[in-house]
C-alpha cells in the first residue's frame, strides 16, 4: 500500500504560494526582523491590555493584521547559530518569554471566537507550523496556545463549523507532520493536555478521529495525520494505551467499515461472462467502494505502523465489529446477487490487505468463525458447486486464498483430511513421499490427452480457412471492433499462446505469458520484470510448449515451497503423525444433532454390559482398537438399531430393512457392489435427505448426484469436528468393509486407520468377517437413516431417542463370543487411545467409523472438474488454475494425492487421474459425435491464442500488483468479450434473459444453464433459445477440450518438477 510513502511529511516548500501572499517584505537581517516584530507586538499588546475584551472590530482587525505579520516573521526566522535547534532565534525567544501566542489566543477566546477569527487563527497556526524553519512545538509558549485553540474547536458549544473543517484538518495534519519529525512533541502534546482536557488528553487525536471515514482530500489528510500519530506513538506505551483505552479510534475505524460496507452495492453489475473478481478498474468508479477501500487500506496501514496494543485492539474490532456482525451475514444472504457481491468483496478485501495481523483476522474469520453452525469456509465451499457466476466468483476467492500459502488455511481446506492417511491403501503409505522420479506420472497425465486433441498441426489447406467461426461468434461486431475487449480472466489464458499451432497469423511475437500456474497468479500476476520476452515460433510444437510448462511449474513450485518454508510441519505422511492426527469432519452424509451422542455415552455406561471401559461409547471402543473392535462394536450398534426398529414398528422402515431381508448376510460379491454404490449413495444423500426420502443404497447414476446440484454441499461438514457421531456411523461400515477387503487383498497383518492394530493377523477372523460386515453395514445404515429421519421430524426424533434409550437399557446387548474375544484382544491399545480421546474428542468417536474422505474442497473441485465438458470456458480456466495452484504445494501429502498417479487410493477416494480419465472419455465421445470437431478445435485454439495476446498486451505494464494497476476506466468500460458472446443472438435482452435464467437455476438448485436449456430442447421447433443453447454446449465442449489438453501438460510438468525441486531451509529470514 502506498501509505508509507504518504508518511513523508509535506515539506514547507509546498506552500510557497501562500507564503508569498502573507509574508512580509522583510527577509532582511534578523536584527531588523526582530525590530519589526517587536513593533507589531507592542501595538498588539496595547490592544490586548485593554480592559474590555469585546472591543471594537477595529481592534480585531488591528490584532489580526499585526498577528499576521508577526507570525510570518516568526515562520521566516532561521534558528540561531550553534546546534540543532538548540538556539532559538531572537523572535522566537521573544515569543516564548512574552508568551505572545498564548496571550493573543486567550484574548480571542475571551472576546468570543467567531468562525471568522477561528478560521484565521487555524490558518495562521497551520502556516506557522507548516513553514517555520525552527522547531516550534516543543515550546510550551507555542504548544499551549495551539492546544487552547484546538480545545475551543473541540468544545461542544463552539465546535468547528463545517466551513472550517478543512482548515482544522490541515492544521492537525501539519501538527502531526512536525510531530513525526520530532517525536518528543508527541510526549509533550500528551502531557500538556490533561490539565485542560481531562480524559481526551490527546486532543489532536480526538479531533481527527471523526474524519477517518471522510471522503475526499479532507479524509485523506485526516487519515494521513492519524497515521503519523500512529507511527510516532508506535514505541510510546503511554500514548498507545491512551489510544487503545481512552479513544474511540479503533472502534470508530472498525465499525466505520461496517457502515461503509452497508452502503456498498448489493449487486454487482456484471459486464462480461468472464468476470469473476473485482479489479481496480472495476471499483474505481464506484464511490462507495472507493470509500470502503480507503478505510480498509487505512486500517491496514494503521496496523502496519501502530503500537502492538493499538494493532491488537484494532484487529479485534475489525473481527468483532465488522467481519462477524457484517461480513458474516452478508456472505450468507439468500439472494444469489448478494452472494456474488459479498464473495467478490471478500476476495477484494483479501487481496488488498497486506498486513499479516489483519490478514490473520480475515483468515480466522473465514476458517474459524461459525455463522449458523457453519464456518465461513464451509459456506464458501458450497458455492463452488453452484453454477455460473457464483461459482466463478467463489473460485476466484479460493484462488486468492490459495495464493496466500497459509498453513492454517491449507490445513482446514485439504491437509487435515489427508493427514490420517486413510485415503491411501496402507501398503501405499510410504509412497506418499515419493516423487515422480522417472516421469511415470507425467507420462500418465500426458497419455490422457485425448486423441482428438493431438492434432497440433494442420495441413496447410486447413489454415487458410474462412475467418474463424469462433472469431465471428465471439467478436460479433467483427474484426472492425477497434480494440480488443479486455478479458478479465486471469492471464492464465495466456497459456494458450503456447498452443498457437495454427500459427499463420502470428506475425507479432507474442510475449511470454504471466505465470499461469503461479500459486500467486492473481487476476494478472505480474510478470517478473526481468523475464525474457520469448518469441514463440510459429507452428509451436509440443516440446517447446511443454518446456514453458516445465518452467512455469518450476517457478510455481519454487515460490510455493519458499512461501511454505516456515510451516510447522512437512506434511509428509509422518509428520504430523497420521496416528495422532485428529480426525477431520467426515463426509457430509448427514447432519446429526449433537445431543444424540451423549445419550449413547450414558446408556453405555449404565448398561455396562459390553465391557467397554467407562467413558467410551460403543464407537469409542471401536475407534480405539481398530478394525476388529470396530466390527464388534459395530455389531453392537446393529443390535441396538434392530431393537429400536422393533419398538417403533414399521413406521420408519427404511429401505435398508428390505435389503436386509433380501440380501441378509450377503456373500462377498454383494458386499462389493454395495461398496461400490456407497460412495455414490453418500454423495447423493444430502440432496435426497432434504426431500425427506430415505437414501437408497443402490448405485446412483454417476451423473446425477455429481452434476452440480448446489444442494449437494450446502450440507456442509459437521461444524464441530469432533462431534459428528452419526455421520461416522453412517460412513463407518462401508469403510470398514473396504478396509477389510483391501486387507484381505493386501494380506494379513496390516493395521489400518489411525490406530495400528496388527492383531488381525488371525485368518480365522478374516474368514468370517465379510458376511458379518455386510450385515452390520446394513444395520448401521438403517440406524443412521432412522436418526436422520428422526431429526427431520423433531418430536419423533426425541421420541425415538427415548425409545432407544429405554429399550436398550432394558436389554443391553450381549456381546457375542467373537466380540468378547476381539475386545479382549484390543484391550491394550484402547486404553491408550482413550487417553488421547480426552485431548481430541474427535478421535474416539470417529476413528474407525470415518470413511476415507478427502474433504469438501477436493470433492467439489473434482466434481466440477468431472463436469468440465459442460463448464464454461472461464469456469474451466479458473478451475484448472486452482488445481494447478494446489499441485504446486510441495507437501508430500497433497502432492501425492494430486500428482502421484501410481498411488493406490481407497476405493471410495476419487483420484485426480480418475476424474481426468473420465473427462477424457467424455471429450472423446463428444468429438466422435461431431464431425467438425477438429476444425472447431483449431478455431478454439486460435481464438484462445489470439485472446491471450490481447490479455497480455493489456496487462503488459508489468510489475504492478493487480490492485494497484491504474488502468483507465475507459478501458474497462469497453464491452467485454463476454458481452459479445452473449450478444450473438443479436438481442441483448435475450442474452440478459439467458443470464437471468442461469441465475434462477442456481437459485433453484437445478441443473446448470446449459443442461437446463438443452434438456427441454430438440422436441420443439428449435427456438432461437434452443439453438443458442446448443451452440453454447458445443462451444463449451470444444473449449473444454483445449483447456483440458493444456491442463494435462501443466500437471505433467508439475509432477516432473516436483521430483527435481529442492526444499528451502526452514526459518530463513523472511526479509533480508
Amino acid at each position, binding site marked *: 500500500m502506498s501509505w508509507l510513502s504518504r508518511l513523508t511529511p509535506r515539506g514547507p516548500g509546498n506552500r510557497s504560494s501562500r507564503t508569498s501572499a502573507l509574508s512580509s517584505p522583510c527577509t532582511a537581517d534578523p536584527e531588523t526582523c526582530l525590530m519589526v516584530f517587536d513593533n507589531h507586538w507592542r501595538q498588539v499588546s496595547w490592544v490586548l491590555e485593554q480592559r474590555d475584551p469585546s472591543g471594537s472590530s477595529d481592534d480585531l482587525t488591528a490584532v489580526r493584521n499585526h498577528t499576521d505579520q508577526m507570525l510570518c516573521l516568526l515562520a521566516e526566522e532561521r534558528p540561531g547559530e550553534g546546534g540543532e535547534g538548540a538556539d532559538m532565534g531572537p523572535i522566537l525567544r521573544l515569543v516564548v518569554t512574552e508568551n505572545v501566542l498564548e496571550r493573543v489566543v486567550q484574548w480571542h477566546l475571551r472576546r468570543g471566537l467567531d468562525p471568522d477569527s477561528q478560521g484565521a487563527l487555524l490558518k495562521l497556526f497551520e502556516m506557522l507550523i507548516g513553514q517555520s524553519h525552527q522547531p516550534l512545538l516543543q515550546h510550551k509558549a507555542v504548544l499551549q496556545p495551539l492546544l487552547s485553540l484546538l480545545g475551543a474547536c473541540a468544545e461542544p458549544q463552539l465546535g468547528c463549523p463545517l466551513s472550517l473543517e478543512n482548515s482544522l484538518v490541515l492544521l492537525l495534519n501539519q501538527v502531526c507532520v512536525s510531530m513525526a519529525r520530532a517525536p518528543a512533541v508527541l510526549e509533550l502534546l500528551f502531557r500538556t493536555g490533561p490539565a485542560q482536557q481531562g480524559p481526551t488528553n490527546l486532543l489532536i487525536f480526538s479531533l481527527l478521529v471523526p474524519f477517518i471515514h471522510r471522503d475526499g482530500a479532507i479524509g485523506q489528510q485526516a487519515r494521513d495525520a492519524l497515521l503519523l500519530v500512529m507511527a510516532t506513538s508506535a514505541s510510546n506505551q503511554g500514548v498507545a494505551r491512551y489510544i487503545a483505552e481512552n479513544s474511540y479510534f479503533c472502534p470508530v475505524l472498525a465499525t466505520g467499515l461496517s457502515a461503509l460496507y452497508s452502503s456498498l452495492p448489493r449487486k454487482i453489475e456484471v459486464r462480461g461472462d468472464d468476470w469473476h473478481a473485482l479489479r481496480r478498474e472495476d471499483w474505481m468508479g464506484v464511490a462507495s467502494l472507493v470509500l470502503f477501500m480507503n478505510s480498509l487500506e487505512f486500517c491496514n496501514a494503521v496496523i502496519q505502523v501502530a503500537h502492538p496494543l493499538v494493532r491488537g485492539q484494532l484487529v479485534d474490532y475489525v473481527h468483532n465489529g465488522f467481519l462477524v456482525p457484517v461480513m458474516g451475514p452478508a456472505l450468507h444472504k439468500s439472494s444469489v446477487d448478494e452472494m456474488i457481491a459479498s464473495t467478490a468483496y471478500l476476495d477484494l478485501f483479501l487481496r488488498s490487505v497486506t498486513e499479516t495481523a489483519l490478514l490473520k483476522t480475515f483468515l480466522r474469520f473465514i476458517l474459524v468463525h461459525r455463522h449458523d453452525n457453519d464456518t465461513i469456509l464451509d459456506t464458501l465451499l458450497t458455492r463452488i458447486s453452484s453454477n455460473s457466476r457464483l461459482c466463478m466468483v467463489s473460485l476466484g476467492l479460493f484462488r486468492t486464498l490459495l495464493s496466500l500459502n497459509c*498453513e492454517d488455511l491449507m490445513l482446514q481446506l485439504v491437509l487435515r483430511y489427508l493427514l490420517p492417511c486413510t485415503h491411501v491403501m496402507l501398503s501405499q503409505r510410504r509412497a506418499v513421499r515419493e516423487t515422480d522420479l522417472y516421469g511415470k506420472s507425467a507420462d500418465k497425465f500426458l497419455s490422457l490427452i485425448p486423441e482428438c486433441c493431438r492434432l497440433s498441426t494442420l495441413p496447410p489447406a486447413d489454415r487458410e480457412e474462412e475467418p474463424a467461426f469462433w472469431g465471428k461468434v465471439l467478436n460479433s461486431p467483427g474484426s472492425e471492433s477497434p480494440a480488443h475487449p479486455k478479458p478479465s480472466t486471469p492471464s492464465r489464458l495466456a497459456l494458450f499462446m503456447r498452443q498457437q499451432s495454427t500459427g499463420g497469423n502470428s506475425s507479432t511475437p507474442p510475449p511470454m505469458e504471466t505465470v499461469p500456474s503461479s500459486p500467486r497468479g492473481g487476476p494478472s500476476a505480474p510478470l517478473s520484470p526481468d523475464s525474457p520476452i520469448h518469441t514463440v515460433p510459429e507452428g509451436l510444437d509440443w516440446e517447446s510448449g511443454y518446456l514453458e510448462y516445465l518452467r512455469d511449474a518450476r517457478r510455481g513450485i519454487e515460490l510455493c515451497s519458499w512461501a511454505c518454508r516456515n510451516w510447522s510441519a512437512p506434511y509428509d505422511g509422518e509428520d504430523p503423525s497420521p496416528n495422532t492426527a485428529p480426525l477431520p469432519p467426515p463426509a457430509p452424509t448427514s447432519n446429526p444433532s449433537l445431543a444424540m451422542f451423549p445419550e449413547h455415552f450414558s446408556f453405555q455406561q449404565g448398561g455396562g454390559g459390553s465391557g467397554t471401559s467407562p467413558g467410551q461409547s460403543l464407537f469409542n471402543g471401536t475407534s480405539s482398537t481398530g478394525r476388529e473392535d470396530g466390527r464388534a462394536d459395530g455389531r453392537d450398534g446393529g443390535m441396538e438399531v434392530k431393537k429400536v426398529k422393533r419398538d417403533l414398528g414399521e413406521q420408519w422402515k427404511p429401505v435398508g430393512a428390505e435389503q436386509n431381508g433380501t440380501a441378509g448376510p450377503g456373500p462377498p460379491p454383494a458386499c462389493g457392489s454395495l461398496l461400490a454404490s456407497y460412495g455414490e449413495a453418500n454423495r447423493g444423500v444430502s440432496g435426497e435427505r432434504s426431500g425427506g426420502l430415505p437414501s437408497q443404497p443402490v448405485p446412483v447414476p454417476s451423473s446425477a448426484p455429481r452434476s452440480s446440484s448446489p444442494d449437494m454441499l450446502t450440507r456442509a461438514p459437521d461444524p464441530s469436528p469432533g462431534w459428528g457421531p452419526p455421520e461416522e456411523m453412517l460412513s463407518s461400515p462401508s469403510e470398514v468393509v473396504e478396509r477389510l477387503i483391501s486387507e484381505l487383498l493386501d494380506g494379513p497383518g496390516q493395521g489400518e486407520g489411525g490406530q495400528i492394530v496388527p492383531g488381525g493377523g488371525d485368518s480365522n477372523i478374516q474368514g468370517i468377517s465379510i458376511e458379518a460386515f455386510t450385515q452390520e453395514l446394513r444395520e448401521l445404515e438403517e440406524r443412521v437413516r432412522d436418526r436422520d429421519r428422526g431429526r427431520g421430524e423433531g418430536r419423533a426424533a426425541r421420541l425415538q431417542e427415548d425409545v432407544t434409550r429405554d429399550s436398550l437399557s432394558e436389554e443391553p446387548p450381549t456381546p457375542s463370543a467373537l466380540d468378547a474375544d476381539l475386545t479382549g484382544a484390543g484391550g491394550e491399545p484402547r486404553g491408550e487411545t482413550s487417553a488421547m480421546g480426552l485431548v481430541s474428542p474427535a478421535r474416539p468417536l470417529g476413528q474407525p467409523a470415518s470413511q476415507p474422505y478427502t474433504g469438501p474442497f477436493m470433492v467439489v473441485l473434482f466434481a466440477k472438474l468431472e463436469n468440465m465438458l459442460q463448464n464454461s470456458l472461464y469456469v474451466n480456466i479458473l478451475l484448472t488454475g486452482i488445481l494447478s495452484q494446489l499441485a504446486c504445494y510441495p507437501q508430500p501429502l497433497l502432492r501425492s494425492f494430486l500428482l502421484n498417479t501410481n498411488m493406490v487410493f481407497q476405493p471410495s477416494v476419487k483420484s485426480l487421474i480418475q476424474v481426468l480419465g473420465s473427462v477424457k472419455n467424455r471429450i472423446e465421445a463428444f468429438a466422435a459425435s461431431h464431425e467438425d470437431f477438429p476444425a472447431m478445435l483449431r478455431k478454439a485454439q486460435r481464438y484462445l491464442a489470439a485472446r491471450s495476446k490481447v490479455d497480455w498486451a493489456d496487462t503488459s505494464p508489468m510489475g504492478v500488483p493487480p490492485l494497484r494497476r491504474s488502468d483507465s476506466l475507459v478501458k474497462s468500460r469497453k464491452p467485454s468479450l463476454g458481452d459479445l458472446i452473449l450478444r450473438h443472438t443479436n438481442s441483448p435482452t435475450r442474452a440478459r434473459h439467458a443470464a437471468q435464467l442461469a441465475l434462477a437455476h442456481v437459485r433453484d438448485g437445478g441443473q446448470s444453464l446449459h443442461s437446463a436449456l438443452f434438456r427441454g430442447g430438440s422436441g420443439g421447433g428449435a427456438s432461437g433459445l434452443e439453438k443458442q443453447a446448443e451452440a453454447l454446449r458445443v462451444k463449451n465442449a470444444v473449449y473444454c477440450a483445449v483447456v483440458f489438453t493444456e491442463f494435462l501438460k501443466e500437471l505433467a510438468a508439475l509432477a516432473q518438477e516436483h521430483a527435481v525441486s529442492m526444499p528451502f531451509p526452514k526459518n530463513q529470514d523472511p526479509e533480508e
Partner: protein
Amino acid sequence: MNLNPFWSMSTNTGRKVRECSSAQRSEFAQVHSTHKRDERDKPWIFSRNFQRDIRTLKRSDSEEQSVQQIAEQQQRASPSRPSFGKKQLPTIPKNTAPITKPASPATTTQSINGTHASYGPFYLEYSLLAEFTLVIKQKLPGIYVQPSYKSALMWFGVIFIRHGLYQDGVFKFTVYIPDNYPDGECPRVVFDIPVFHPLVDPVSGELDVRRAFTKWRRNHNHIWQVLMYARTVFYKINTMEPLNPEAAVLYDKDVQLFKSKVVESVKLCNSHLFDQPKIDDPYAISFSPWNPAVHDEAKERMFTHKRRPEDHHKGLQVSGLSWVKPGSTQPFSKDENSQQS
C-alpha cells in the same frame, strides 16, 4: 532471466561444502577452485540438453525419420557433441531454431514403450536431474559430484577420505550412466587414477560397482547409493572376487605391505591433484592451489549465499503464513506472543 532447471545446484554444492569445510578446509578450497564461471553457468546444463534434443528432433524431422531413430541418434550423439562456445542459457523458444513442423501428427501421437514419444527426452533429463537432486539431499559426506557440461549421463566427482587406511586420499572419478537409464545396468564409476584397492581395476581404474548392484532396479536403486558405495569401499575393505588380485592378496596376507602400498597410491593420487582434468569438459572438477584473490571471495559468497526463488519479489503479497503450533494440527493454535510480526 535465469531459467535453469536446477538453480539449486550451485547453492547446495555450497551448502555441502560448508558442512564439510569445518572438517577439512583445504578440501573445500580445492574443490571450489574449479572454474568460477562454470559454477554459475553449470546449472543450465539440462536446459542446454533440451535444446539439443529439440535440435536433434528438428534434424530428424527434415530427414523424415521416425521418433525411435531420433532417440537412438540422440543417444549416440551425446558423447561427441561439440561444445558450445558461449555458455548461455538457451531461452528455449527464442533461441531454438523454430521447428516448422514436428513429426507428422501420426508420429507424434505414437507411443513408444509406453512413453509418449515426443516427451521422451524430458523424462531422461528429468530422471537424471531428479537423481542429482537426491544426491544433494543425501548430503553424502566427503563426496561431490557434478554432471558434465556435455552430457547428463556423465558426472564428475571427487571423494575425500577422512580416516582409515586411505586417509587423506582425494580421488577424482567419473560416473557413467547408461543411456537407457533407469532400465539398464548400474552406473559405472571410474577413478581418474587407479587407486590401489582390491575392487578397483589397476588398469582402467574402474570400481567394481556391479557386485553391489547386481541388478539395477528403478525406484529402488539410486545414483547416490552408488556414490555412497564408492565411499564405503575405502572404509570397509572387501577382498572377495577382486579386480585387483594383488591388493586383495596383500590385504589378506600382509596388511603392512598393503598399507604401505595404499599410502603410496594415495600419495600418487594427491600428487596429480592439480593436473588438468582427464576429460575436457567445462564442468570437469579441477583443483588449484589456494589463491586468496580468487578463493576467499568465492568462499565468502558461498557461505553467505541464501537461496531464494528465482523471481522472488519482496512485498508482492504476503504469503507463507502460518499460525499452526508445531505439533498441532489445529489452525491458529500458535501462541499469540510467538506470532510472527
